[in-house]
C-alpha cells in the first residue's frame, strides 16, 4: 500500500516534537504530585493568565499543524513507482488550501476587488487603457464590486454564526465536565460557570475562546473569497504569511530552550554547589560570553553559518532544508548566548541551598553528590527555571524581528514577522500607503507577545510569592 503523501521530518520538526514530549512528561509528572499542582491552581484561578493561555494554545495549535510536513504524491500511471512533489507542504498548508494558492499579481488592499497598482489593460472594444485591474481571486465572485461590503458583512456574520455554534459547544462541554466532577445537574453547573467566583479563571478562558472562535469563523468564511489582510508585493495573501510566521516565532522562542536548559542547569548548579575552581572556571566562562555584545556574537555566528551553507551547497538538498537548518542554527546561537542569565540565577540559588540543613544532613549521611543534586537541589530551583524560561520567550519572539531586520535572522525566504516587516517598511513611502503587511505582522506579533507576557506574569505570581502581582 502506498500513502497519498510522503511524510517529511525537518530538523526543527523533530526538535519541536522532542520538546513537546518533554513538556507532556513534565505535565504528567506535575499532575501526579499534589505539591507540584498547587501553584498551577493559582494560574488556573487567574483571569488574565487563563485568557493568555487560551491565546497561546491557539498559536501553538497553528504552529504544530504547520510543523507536520509532507510531500504530496503526484498522479502517476498504474504500475509505475509513486512520484512525490518536490515542494514540502505542511498539514496547515493543506487545511487552508485556497489561502496559499490564490496568488494575485501584486499589492492589493484588504477586501479589495482591484489591484493596488495600475496596469495596461485592453478593454472589450480594443482600446488600451491604464487602470486598476480586477483581482483574480479577491471578490472575483461579485458581478458588481460596488456591493462588496454588503457581501463581506453577510459572509462574515454567517461565519461568525457558525463559530458561535462551536463556542456554545465549548461552553456546553465545560459545563458537562463540571457537572460530572461536582455531581450536579447540568443547568446548575452552567449557572456556576457563568457566575461563580471560584471559576473566574476558566470563565475568562471560555470567553477568550468564544471571541477567538467567532473571529476565526468570520475570517474562515471570508478568506476563500477575499484577501482579508490584503496581498504583498508578489501577490501572496498576507493573512497566510502572518499565520505561517507563527511557526517561526514559536520555534525561535521554544527551541532555544533546548540549548539554554541543559547548559544553564548543569553549569549554574555545578558552580554554586561545588564552588572552588569549578566555580571560578564557570564564572570565567560566562563573564567572557557576557562581555561580547549579544547582537554581534549572534550576528558573527550566523554570518559564519551563512558562509558555511553558501560554500557547501551539496550538503543541503532542498531550499526548505536549507532555511530550516538556518533556523535551527539561529536557535542554537541564541541559546549559546542566552544561558548566562539563568545560570547566574541558579548559581546564586544553589549557593544558598547548599548551606541549608537538609542538604548538610544528606551530606553527613554520605549521600553522593549526584543524588543530592537530583533529589535536593534540582526540585528546589525548578520554579526559577520555569519562570525564567516563560519570561524569556517573549523577548526571543521580539528579537527575531530585529535580527531579521539586521540581516542575521531567519532565511529571507522563510515566512516570519521580521521578514514581513523588513519587506514592507520601505512601502510606507508610497502614496497611498501600503500599510496592511506591516500592520498584520505587528498585530500577530503583539498578540503573541502580550499573551506570553501576561501568562508569564501569572506563572511568576503563582510560583514566586514574593514578586508583585500585575494588578
Amino acid at each position, binding site marked *: 500500500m502506498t500513502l497519498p503523501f510522503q511524510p517529511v521530518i525537518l530538523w526543527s520538526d523533530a526538535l519541536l516534537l522532542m520538546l513537546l514530549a518533554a513538556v507532556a512528561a513534565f505535565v504528567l509528572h506535575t499532575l501526579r504530585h499534589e505539591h507540584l499542582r498547587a501553584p498551577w491552581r493559582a494560574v488556573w484561578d487567574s483571569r488574565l493568565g487563563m485568557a493568555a493561555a487560551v491565546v497561546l494554545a491557539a498559536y501553538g495549535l497553528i504552529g504544530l499543524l504547520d510543523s507536520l510536513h509532507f510531500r504530496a504524491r503526484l498522479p502517476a500511471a498504474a504500475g509505475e513507482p509513486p512520484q512525490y512533489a518536490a515542494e514540502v507542504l505542511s498539514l496547515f498548508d493543506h487545511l487552508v488550501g485556497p489561502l496559499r494558492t490564490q496568488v494575485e499579481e501584486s499589492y492589493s488592499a484588504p477586501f479589495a476587488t482591484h489591484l493596488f497598482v495600475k496596469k495596461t489593460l485592453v478593454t472589450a472594444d480594443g482600446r488600451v487603457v491604464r487602470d486598476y485591474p480586477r483581482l483574480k481571486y479577491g471578490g472575483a465572485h461579485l458581478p458588481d464590486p460596488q456591493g462588496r461590503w454588503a457581501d463581506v458583512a453577510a459572509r462574515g456574520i454567517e461565519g461568525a454564526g457558525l463559530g458561535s455554534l462551536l463556542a456554545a459547544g465549548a461552553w456546553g462541554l465545560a459545563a458537562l465536565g463540571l457537572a460530572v466532577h461536582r455531581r450536579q445537574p447540568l443547568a446548575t453547573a452552567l449557572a456556576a460557570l457563568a457566575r461563580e467566583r471560584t471559576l473566574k479563571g476558566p470563565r475568562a478562558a471560555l470567553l477568550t475562546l468564544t471571541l477567538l472562535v467567532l473571529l476565526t469563523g468570520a475570517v474562515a468564511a471570508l478568506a476563500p473569497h477575499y484577501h482579508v489582510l490584503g496581498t504583498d508585493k508578489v501577490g501572496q495573501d498576507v493573512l497566510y504569511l502572518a499565520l505561517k510566521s507563527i511557526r517561526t516565532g514559536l520555534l525561535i522562542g521554544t527551541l532555544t530552550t533546548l540549548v539554554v536548559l541543559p547548559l544553564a542547569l548543569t553549569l549554574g548548579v555545578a558552580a554554586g554547589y561545588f564552588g572552588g575552581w569549578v566555580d571560578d572556571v564557570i564564572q570565567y566562562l560566562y563573564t*567572557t560570553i557576557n562581555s*561580547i555584545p549579544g547582537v554581534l556574537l549572534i550576528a558573527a*555566528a550566523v554570518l559564519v553559518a551563512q558562509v558555511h551553507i553558501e560554500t557547501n551547497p551539496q550538503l543541503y538538498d532542498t531550499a526548505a532544508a536549507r532555511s530550516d537548518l538556518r533556523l535551527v542554527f539561529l536557535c542554537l546561537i541564541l541559546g549559546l548566548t542566552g544561558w548566562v542569565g539563568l545560570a547566574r540565577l541558579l548559581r546564586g540559588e544553589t549557593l544558598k541551598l547548599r548551606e541549608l540543613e537538609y542538604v548538610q544532613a544528606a551530606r553527613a549521611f554520605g549521600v553522593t553528590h549526584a543524588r543530592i543534586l537530583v533529589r535536593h537541589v534540582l526540585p528546589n530551583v525548578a520554579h526559577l527555571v520555569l519562570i525564567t524560561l516563560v519570561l524569556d520567550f517573549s523577548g526571543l519572539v521580539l528579537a527575531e524581528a530585529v535580527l531579521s531586520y539586521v540581516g542575521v535572522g531567519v532565511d529571507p525566504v522563510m515566512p516570519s514577522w521580521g521578514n514581513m516587516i523588513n519587506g514592507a517598511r520601505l512601502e510606507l513611502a508610497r502614496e497611498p500607503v501600503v500599510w496592511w503587511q506591516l500592520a498584520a505582522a505587528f498585530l500577530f506579533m503583539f498578540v503573541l507577545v502580550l499573551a506570553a507576557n501576561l501568562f508569564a506574569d501569572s506563572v511568576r505570581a503563582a510560583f514566586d510569592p514574593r514578586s508583585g502581582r500585575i494588578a
Partner: protein
Amino acid sequence: MTAYLLRRLLYAIPILIGVNLITFALFFVVNTPDDMARIHLGAKHVTPEAIARWKAEHGYNKPLFYNDQASGVARFTDTLFVQKSLRLFVFDFGRADDGRDIGREIASRMWPSLAIALPTLLVGLAVYVSFALLLVFFRATYLDTAGVVLCVVLMSISGLFYVIASQYLLGKLWNWVPISGYQPGWDGLKFLVLPVLVGVISALGESSRFYRALFLEEMHKDYVRTARAKGLSEAAVLFRHVLGNALIPILTGVVVVIPRLILGSLILESFFGIPGLGSYTIDALQAQDFAIVRAMVFLGSVLYILGLILTDLSYTLVDPRVRLE
C-alpha cells in the same frame, strides 16, 4: 582600593583573551580566509589565483599559528593569530575591506552615536523614574493598575514598530522633524529628537515596571515605617527617603552600560541614518566585512569590563556601607 582596581584590571586580561579566542575561532578556523575570499569575489570570479590575490591584498595569506617560512620570533609573530587577533589588544584594529583605517573610523563615528545614546539614557532615566514614582504614589489604586497594564502592553510591542510608526506619524504625516539624517553641532538638534524619543519610549514599559518593583520593595522596609511614624507626609516619605535608597540599585545598574554607549544602537542608527558606530556595524554585517565585526566585538568586551569596574566603584560612592578590598 588601588589593589582592588589593579586586580580587577588583571582579571580583565584572561577574559579579553577568551573573547579573542572565540572570535578567532569563529572567523579563522570554522570559517577559513578562503571562504571569506570566495564570498567577496562572488561566484563568477572564484579562481585559485583570485583567492590568493584577495588574501594577499587583505593580509590573510599567513598560517594560523606557526609560520615555517619565517625565521626566529617571526615564526610566531608573522601569523594570522598575532597579526589579526592579538593586535586588537593594543587597539590596532587594522583596515576594513575598503582599505580605510578602522581605528580612525571608530574615533570619528563614536560622537554621533553618543549624541543619540547619551540623551536617550538621561531623558529615559528621568522619565522612567518619574513614571514609576507616580505609580508607587498611587499604588493599589486603579491608576496604578492601569499604569502597570500600560507597561505590559508597551513591553509587548516590537521596537521596530515604534521606529516605523514615529517616522511615519511625526516625520512624514505631520512634518514636525526630519525623518532621518544627521548634522553635527546645535543645528543638528532637530535630527536627534526622533531617535531619542523612540529610544526612550521603546524601553518605557520594561524599565518603569522594573523601577516600580524596586520602589515597592523599599516601601516595606523599616525606615519607611519609622518615617511614617514620625508623621511625615506620604510625599515626603516617597521623595526624601524611598527615592534616595531605591536610586542605589537604579544608578549602579545604569553605570554598567555607560561605556558601551559609544557603540550606539544598531536599529536606531540605521533607521534614522545616524553615521555612528551602530550603523557602521550594521553596514559591516551586511557587507560581511569581518575585520570591522572583529574590532567591534573586541571593543564591546573592553567597554563591558570597564562598565563592571565602574559599577563596583560607583557602589562605594553612593553606598558608604560598601568597601572594596
